[in-house]
């Protein structure tokens, strides 16, 4: 019984400690971003690793998500005789919610885990300590470029996700089901707003980019320098990022809707 209480207490303290340490790492990263701006090549390399290599999984899943949305939406909308609204449904669902959220979840699985494992292994093999010995700050040399790469890559991936998803929805709705093409696009254009839908979607994906990348970086930086520690840190990255994305999505949406 006392053991249980002890466990709860130490876990809570541990979580709060990790939250504080994560926030401190975030601040340090922002402060030591100067080198990333001075040497953009560092960031480019990481954009390649996080963004370009995620293109395939993002575009394929976007295509299927769009197609499923169109199929499901048509099935329900045609009961009310408004199957032309399928374009609005697909576009709004993707631009407002699914684009940023699903991209962030896939990004956490595809790129976040890679970041955590890489940094965790760098720490386990004492590469980070070696950098410090050479008076190279590992935060400005390793952490900051990855952070900015994630913040740049995620909004672009989310925009691609929405666009490819809409194309997938179009392919199912127009050639396959036979919804009128003009109505599909014109209803979409009449009801999707630049400011309230698209810009808000981009804001969401930027916030998710900061959250996902920062969680992945912190888990890697904080991982115990053992094989088991790195593997557990990688798992935690996916779990924490997913929860953070979904919770942030609710918070951001409640700000944006009102």
């Amino acid at each position, binding site marked *: 019984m006392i053991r249980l209480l002890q466990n709860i207490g130490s876990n809570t303290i541990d979580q709060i400690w990790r939250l504080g340490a994560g926030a401190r790492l975030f601040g340090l990263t922002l402060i030591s971003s100067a080198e990333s701006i001075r040497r953009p090549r560092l960031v480019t390399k990481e954009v390649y690793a996080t963004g370009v290599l995620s293109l395939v999984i993002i575009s394929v899943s976007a295509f299927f998500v769009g197609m499923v949305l169109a199929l499901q939406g048509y099935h329900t909308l045609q009961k009310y005789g408004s199957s032309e609204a399928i374009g609005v449904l697909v576009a709004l669902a993707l631009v407002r919610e699914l684009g940023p959220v699903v991209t962030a979840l896939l990004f956490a699985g595809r790129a976040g885990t890679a970041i955590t494992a890489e940094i965790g292994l760098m720490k386990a093999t004492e590469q980070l300590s070696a950098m410090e010995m050479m008076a190279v700050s590992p935060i400005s040399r390793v952490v900051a470029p990855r952070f900015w790469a994630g913040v740049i890559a995620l909004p*672009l991936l989310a*925009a691609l996700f929405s666009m490819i998803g809409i194309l997938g929805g179009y392919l199912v709705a127009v050639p396959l089901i036979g919804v009128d093409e003009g109505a599909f696009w014109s209803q979409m254009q009449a009801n999707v707003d630049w400011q309230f839908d698209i810009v808000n979607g981009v804001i969401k994906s930027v916030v998710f980019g900061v959250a996902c990348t920062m969680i992945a970086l912190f888990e890697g930086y904080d991982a115990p320098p053992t094989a088991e520690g790195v593997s557990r840190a990688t798992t935690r990255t996916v779990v924490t990022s997913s929860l953070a994305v979904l919770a942030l999505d609710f918070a951001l949406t409640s700000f944006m809707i009102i």
Partner: protein
Amino acid sequence: MERTTIDLWVGVFVALGVAALLGLAMKVGNLTTSSVGETYTVNAAFENIGGLKPRAPVKSAGVVVGRVERIRFDTETYEAIVSLNIDKRFSFPTDTFANIYTAGLLGEQYIGLEAGGEIEALAHGDKIAHTQDAVVLEKMISQFLYNKASEPAAPAAAAPAPAESTKTGDDALTTNPLDDILN
């Protein structure tokens, strides 16, 4: 600065991402027609705007010519003042009619402009004098019941008062230009 294939791929990725954003803006969000192009603003006062909202379309003959910019409440006349942004390419005479219509039975509400016969055109900041309120379903039903009840008693007295807000758009169109000519 040496170039690597990684830079090329990152360039392709960024270009694709920006193209997708532009595609969303142009093809999906219809940014081209909503904010590009100069507009002028005219005001119209309504006794009841029903469910009209900012950014609702302003149509003339079914063509979108502008958008509702904002709606505010005048505490002196107790009317709703609706500001309309109309595209500079379209000019309307000063005796234009502004009506609030509903798209479909339960659809969104929009403002329909019907051009009058004056030569002078509406300028920025002008006020549209002739307006017709939104149709409120409850009001219409009660009016109908009221008319039905009074029908057998006095058919001659059922002629509508000239400035009543519930008369139909056709009625308003045929009576008001005539009034102008007579005056």
